[in-house]
Structures are given as C-alpha cells and as structure tokens.
C-alpha cells in the first residue's frame, strides 16, 4: 500500500517550493513563469492522481501515514495521513488549481509570477490542511493560507479590494484563534496534539459544548454559515476571477472539512446536543440567503450568495444525521445525509468554480459584472452561452448534473429527521432555479442590448478547454457519482459509528 515515495509530503511541498521557484523566476519573464506554474500544477495533480490509484477503498482508517518528530519538547509531530474525506478534498484542490492556472494564463498581466506563485503556495498549504493529523500542524497550515489569499485579493482585486481583503483576513483570523485556544485546552486534557488520539478522549458535556463552539467559530466563518457569512460576498466580488474560483471551490470546503475532522468526532455529544441549533442556522442560510441572492444586481455577488446557500446544505446534511439517529436510528439515512453533504461540497466546487469562471470570461471582455449591462449575449457568444446554461442548470440542481445528487440525498435524508426540514430545504430548489436562471435569462437571452455586447467575441480555445473540462466533470458525477461515494463510504461509516458512541460518560 505504502511504497517508497512520501506522496503526502510531495503533495504539500511540491506546490509550495514550486511557488517559490516561480517567484524567483521574476515578473520580467511572464511566459516562463506561466509555463513553470503550469508544470508545477500538473505535477501536483499527477501526484494526487497517483494517490487515488494507490488508495485502498476498503480501509476506513488513515493511509499513507508519515510520522516524524517536529517539536519534540511538546510532542508536536509532522504527522500526515489521509482517509476518504481528505482524499476527495485533495483531488478537488489539485484539479481546481490546475484549471485556475490555465484560466488565468493571459488574463493576468501585472506581476504574473507573484500571482501564479501565490496560487501554487496556496494550493500546497490547503493540501497541508487536508493531510495534517496533528492539531498544531493543521493550525499552522490553516492560518498560513490566509497570507496568499490576502495578497491575491488585495493586489489583483477590484476597486474595494482593500476593504474586502482586510475584512476577509480579520474575520477568518478571529474565528481561528478560538480554535487555537480549544486545541490547547484539549492538549491539557489529553497530553497529545494528535487528532486521532483526541477522538478517544473522554470529555464532559459542558466542556464539549465550549470546545464545539470554539471550533464552530473557526469553521462556520470558513463555510460560511449564517450569520458570519458577510465577509464572503465582499471577498468574492473584489477578488480576481481565479481568486473567487479557489475561494468558492476549495477554501469554503475547509470549513466543512474541519467540521468532519474535528467537531463531529471530538465533540460528538455536543454536536448531537446542538444539532437542532445547527440545522436552524443551515436552513436560514439555505432559505434566507437564497432570497438575498434573488435581488443581487452584481453577478459575482449573486453567485457568492448562492454559494452560502448551497453550503447550507452541507452543514444541514452533517447535523441532520444526529437528529435522524435520535428519532429513527436509521443508520442508512443518516450516513446518506453526511455523504450528501460531502457530495454537495465536491459538486459545489465544480459548479461555483465554473460559474465564477463564466463571469470572469464576460468581465474580461466587458469590464462589468452588473447584470443590467448585459443582455443578448447568446447572439454573439453561442458556445459560451451553451456551457453557461449547463452550469446554471447544475446550480439550480437539475437531475443529471452533480448539483442534483448532493441536494437530493440531503433532502431525502432530512425527511427522516423531520418533514418540515425537508420542505424548507426543498424550497431552495425553487429559489436556486429562480435566481440562477433569472440571472441567466437577463444576461444571456433577449435582444442585444448595447454595442459592447454586439462586439463580443466567443470564447477562445483556452476558455473552451477549462469550461469544457468542468462541464464534463459536472455531467460525469451527475450521471455516475459512484466513484466519489466509493472513496468516502468506508470512512464515513466509521465516522458515523464513532459519532454515536459518545464520550460524555
């Protein structure tokens, strides 16, 4: 199973060191920087593909484990390992970063090498978060990745970029430090920084609730859950296209991943006790933010709100499992909810990424994101319109696309928790269709509204490639999602058993 190469270390350090290399290539030779980063991103993607090929699907535990002492005074280890949940996230991350490098090929003209380097370093650090099995190592990656994103939004962003990026940084920093205090507290209860050992640490319910809240502050900001979502629309609107794509497709998943890796297994009783509270927050995100999305005038802002709404499904799926267990003890339905949440994260990664790219394509040509500036784009950009149609439908959860699978599973399983939850959640299918398709209609269909639209050129080969690959992914996993479930099934079953054991004693 584990032969020779330390694949996980390679996954983290190839892009980080590659990014530094690109940085030193300098801005003068923009072409070199581009090819170099394409090379590094491809290499990283190949490594992650290798990881998938060697991954043992039947094994629910950690694989490819690497364990070295890092800070021996406090028993902090360089401890890496992945299970089904992390593998999916890593694949998503390496895949999206590769696409982003291609998508920003000649869109970015200033400070090219710094731009590419920031994305590569960000990729490596995010991989670091997904593979860490030591809480302090996890925290270091978790915080460090704020720095490249801070710079990406701040340097290459829109007019209000400074406000947006500082808000983004401080919001996430604020959430994270409470997690740090909780991790230190856990260390004094258990004497270990190892995540896996913390799974078996007995904790009283009050302790668990406090720790759960500290974790939640960190993860809810990243997801983002209502009411700590307000940084996201600002960050998305001001970020460059590539920044928005990575932010929506991968960074938001860090929050969901954190809930799965920390909150559910380390504080299961608190999660169960607060499940209803979490479900209410998720439903507010799904329904209320859905309405907010409906009235947006800016396309990027609309997709940002749609992201929050869709991520509400993830948290809904995760916490509905506890209520299902309490009411019916139907393990199948509960696991389905968690897997639905996971599936929703992956699929949202493709769809939101693709939609942000679509807006980026139009923005590059028209330098406007206002819906009212467009109209009749289909007349001049038919290929683009067709592809965007697919992503818009996927965003509204059309069967046959990956967007449908996750939402459907979450809705069915939450029916077991309470029909009311399912009904509220299902409203989003209507709302999602309403805001996405209404935007699509106003931008793409109708008569050509102005001269600028009339002069639009259809997408070039590079854009076709990127959007085409994403279209294939959306359709493939919509029709045949089995590979994704295969990867995570064993792990999630084990997680579910662990969650229910409880440890308040």
């Amino acid at each position, binding site marked *: 199973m584990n032969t020779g190469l330390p694949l996980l270390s390679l996954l983290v350090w190839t892009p980080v060191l590659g990014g530094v290399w690109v940085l030193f290539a300098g801005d003068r030779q923009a072409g070199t920087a581009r090819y170099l980063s394409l090379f590094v991103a491809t290499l990283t993607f190949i490594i992650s593909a290798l990881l998938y090929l060697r991954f043992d699907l039947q094994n629910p535990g950690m694989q490819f484990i690497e364990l070295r002492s*890092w800070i021996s005074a406090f*028993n902090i280890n360089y401890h890496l390992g992945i299970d089904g949940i992390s593998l999916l996230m890593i694949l998503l991350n390496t895949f999206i970063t590769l696409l982003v490098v291609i998508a920003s090929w000649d869109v970015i003209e200033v400070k090219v090498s710094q731009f590419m380097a920031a994305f590569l370093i960000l990729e490596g650090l995010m991989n670091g978060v997904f593979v860490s099995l030591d809480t302090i190592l996890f925290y*270091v990656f978790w915080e460090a990745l704020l720095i490249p994103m801070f710079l990406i939004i701040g340097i290459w962003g829109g007019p209000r970029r400074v406000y947006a990026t500082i808000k983004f940084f401080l919001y996430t920093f604020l959430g994270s430090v409470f997690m*740090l*205090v909780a991790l230190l507290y856990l260390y004094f209860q258990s004497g270990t920084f190892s995540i896996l050992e913390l799974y078996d640490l007995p904790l009283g319910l009050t302790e668990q609730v406090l720790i759960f809240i500290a974790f939640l502050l960190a993860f809810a900001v990243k997801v983002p859950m209502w009411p700590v979502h307000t940084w996201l629309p600002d960050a998305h609107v001001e970020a460059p296209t590539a920044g928005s794509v990575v932010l929506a497709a991968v960074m938001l998943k860090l929050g969901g991943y954190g809930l799965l890796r920390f909150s559910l297994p380390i504080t299961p009783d608190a999660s169960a006790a607060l499940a209803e509270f979490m479900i209410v927050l998720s439903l507010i995100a799904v329904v209320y933010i859905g309405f907010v999305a409906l009235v947006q005038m800016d396309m990027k802002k609309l997709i940002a709100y749609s992201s929050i709404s869709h991520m509400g499904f993830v948290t809904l799926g995760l916490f509905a499992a506890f209520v299902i267990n309490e009411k019916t003890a139907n393990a199948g339905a509960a696991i389905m909810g968690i897997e639905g949440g996971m599936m929703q994260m992956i699929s949202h990664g493709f769809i939101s990424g693709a939609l942000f790219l679509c807006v980026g394509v139009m923005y590059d040509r028209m330098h406007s994101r206002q819906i009212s500036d467009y109209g009749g784009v289909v007349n001049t950009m038919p290929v683009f319109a067709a592809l965007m149609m697919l992503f818009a439908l996927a965003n509204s959860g059309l069967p046959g696309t990956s967007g449908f699978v996750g939402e459907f599973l979450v809705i069915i399983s939450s029916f077991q928790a309470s029909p009311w939850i399912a009904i509220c959640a299902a409203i989003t299918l209507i709302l999602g269709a309403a805001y996405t398709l209404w935007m699509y209609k106003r931008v793409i269909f109708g008569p050509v509204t102005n001269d600028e639209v009339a002069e639009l050129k259809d997408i070039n080969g590079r854009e076709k490639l990127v959007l085409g690959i994403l279209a294939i992914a959306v359709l493939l996993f919509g029709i045949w999602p089995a590979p994704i479930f295969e990867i995570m099934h064993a792990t999630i079953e084990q997680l579910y058993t662990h969650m229910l054991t409880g440890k308040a004693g």
Partner: protein
Amino acid sequence: MLIELQMILPEIVLMSMACALLVFDAFIPSERRHLTYLLAQLALLVTAVLVVASFPQITEYAFNRTFVDDPMSGAVKAFILVITLFIFFYSHDYLKEHGILKGEYFVLGLFAVLGMMIMASAGSLLTIYLGLELLSLCLYAMVAMHRDSPPASEAAMKYFVLGALASGLLLYGISIIYGISGTLDLQEINNYILYNSERLPMLVYGLVFIIVAIAFKLGAVPFHMWIPDVYQGAPTSVTLFISSAPKIAAFAMTIRFVNDAFMHLTPEWQGILIILSILSMAMGNIIAIAQSNIKRMLAYSTIAHIGFLLLGIISSQSVSATGVTGFADALFYVVTYALMSIGAFGFVILMGRKGHEADELDDYKGLADKNPWFALIMLIFMFSLAGVPPFVGFWAKWFVLKEIVATGLAPLAVIAVVFSIIGAYYYLRVVKLMYFDKPVSMTAIKATQTMRAVISLNGLAILLLGVSPGLLMTFCIEVMKL
C-alpha cells in the same frame, strides 16, 4: 578568588575593551571612525565567544552571592550579545547616512550591554540596581546623541525624568524590602519571606514599588508614557537598540525578582501583572491603530507585546516532554520579539536616506512595485509580529498561550487572542500600503550590501525559526529549569 574572576571574565573583557575603545576613539581622525565600529563589533564577538565557551551548567555564586552564574544568565547574555551585533550592523549605516557617526554611540552601546549582562547575573538587589542604572544612563545619552534634533532632545529629557522616577521607585522598594528582611541577597529574601509570612503586608508594600519600576522599564501600561515619545524622537538606530536588547535584560531582571526573591509572593505579583498585562495588550493594540508614524506605531506595538510577555511571566510552571517549562515561554517570547523588532526598525533604517527618516506610514506605499524582495522581507516581519504562522511570532504567542491555559487561566488566553486580532489590523495595514497601494515616488531603496544582506538574513531567520522552532524552544526550556 580566581574562580570568581573567571566567572565574570566576559564582563571584565567587555568593560576593558569598552574603556580602551573610549580612549582609542578620542585619538583617531573622524574619517576613520568606522574603525571604532569594527572594534566594537569585535568586542561583542569576543565577549559572546567567552560567554558561550564558559556556558554554565549549574548555578554558581561569586562575590558573596552578589553575582549569579546560571544557565539563564548565560542564555540571556548570549542572546543580548547576538542581538546587539545585529543592532550595530544596522546602526552603522544609519549613523553614517545621517552624519552622526560618532564613537560614543558604540562605546555607550557596549557599556549598556555590560549593564544588561550585570542585570542578568544579579544575585542581590544592589547588583540589579547597578546594572539597571548603567544601562539606563547609557540609553539616556544615546537618545540625546542627535543633539541638533529637537524631538531627540525632548525624548531624552522625558526618558531621563521618567527613568529617574522609576529608579527612585525601585530604590524605595528595595529599601523597604531591606528594612524588613535585613538583607539584599535575593535568595535570603526568599527564605525570609518563607519563614516570616506575618510580615506579608509590608513585604507586598515593597513588592508593589519594585513591580512598578519593572513596569516602567518594560513599558507596561499604565507606566508606558515614555515609550511612544522616546521611540519616535530618538534616532532610529537608538530606537532599534532600546526596543530589543534591553527588553531581554528587563525580562531577566523580572525573573530575578519574581522568582529568586519573591517566589513565595507569587499570588501577589501574579495579580498585579495580570492587570498590567491586560491593560498593555488593550491600550497598545488599540492606540497603535490610530498612528500614522511607523516608529510610533511600532512603539505601541511594543507595549502590546510587553503585555503578552507579562502573560508568559504570569503563567507558572507546567511540565512538558523535556521537563518543567518554567518561564521558558517568556524567554522565547522576548528573544523572538527582539529579533522581529530589530528587523522592523532596521527596515525603517533601510528605507531612510540622508535628511529623510522614512518613518511615516505613507513612505511605504507601493514598495512592492519598487523593491519586491524587501517588501517581502517587511511582510515577513509584519505577519510575524501579528502572530501569523508559519513565522516565529506565531510560536512565541502559541507558547505563551499554551502555558497560560496550562496554568488554568484559559479566560486570560481568550482575552489575549482577542487583542491579537485587533493588533493584526495595523500590521496588515503596513502590508496593504506596501502591496496594494501605488507608489508615491519611484525612488528605489539605496542601501549598502551589508545592510541588504543583514536584513535579508534577519527575515529568513524569522521564517526558519517559524518552520522549525523546536530547537530554540528546547534550549529555552533547558536554561529555564530553575
């Protein structure tokens, strides 16, 4: 006697070389002034080698227990000497550029280092006072060195008056303690307190004055008033000096007091320090936001960092894999802080040129367009000061927080992290100015190769220590095994 002299050999060598340098400097023509600088560096280097070569493994006493040689003093001296080496590198260019390259700077600097070394090794109240006064007098003179500059003179005056007040308070506290216990020896005071707990109120009365003096010297709120004015008014090379090495010495002095002499009054001084610490973090971080002068901003940031350092001293001992951690977290904090602080002030020196102190925040606008490499180095300093991993500033904060949680003061840890968030804002603003704003003028940085090399080294050291902080942590724990 011989053994006793051997123990203070580094101090003797440093003193002799400083005296010799004073004479030497009077006789060389001003165009060969850099010889003084080189000899001063040599003196530091030789002393550092002596300190490291005779690194004490156990605690030994000399001269009727007025002088202590223990691992902590050895480590503190080594750190002070290395940091001062860096400081002299930075200072030389600054002084030359601004036309105040005088031998006195280096001679006074060496005497200040001597004072710090004596503070670190003090075994009696009198030795502490001697070391502290030697250090302070040198610093007053260094602040006033740029005598044609009104702000510098004003700063020196304020520093002198407030510093003298603090020294007076310290002496008052010392005399009260001496009056009660009848001894100046720290260890004997400790024993006296243990067996005479009925004298507690009087002892605490003396302790309060001593703590106030410590707070003055460290710059903890509400005894911080001198810090912003002195930092802003003094020549940057002096600010650089004041903000780094003396903090390490003040840390050593604090440990001598609170651990060697007042260990049995722990709840009393802990209570006082908690209030000072919270106030420092709050005031420092919040007021720094409103500053437009980077030296003044960094001054308030120092106050905030002192608050964190006090947290490290408050946290009592916990056990780790390599033993009892003692005050190791505070030592780690103050050393890494000194390293970051000289980096940040060194950067202000790097940016300045003749007749222009680049100390307004606006001077940093668009630096990334002009000098990407140096902007990156400053970015490292800023994120490290803000406590963002993977830089060493994070580990310093982490270590302190960990000890605070271990002491059972988790709410204090929460307060500390909240103020760190507030503090992050003004560090981010510097990064914002450098990276997100357009440059005002395209004047590129003009600096010597040494300066460039030293500041790059400083930045990389912060990154490397951040990636692998284990060695330094273990070292701090080893030397702080009390």
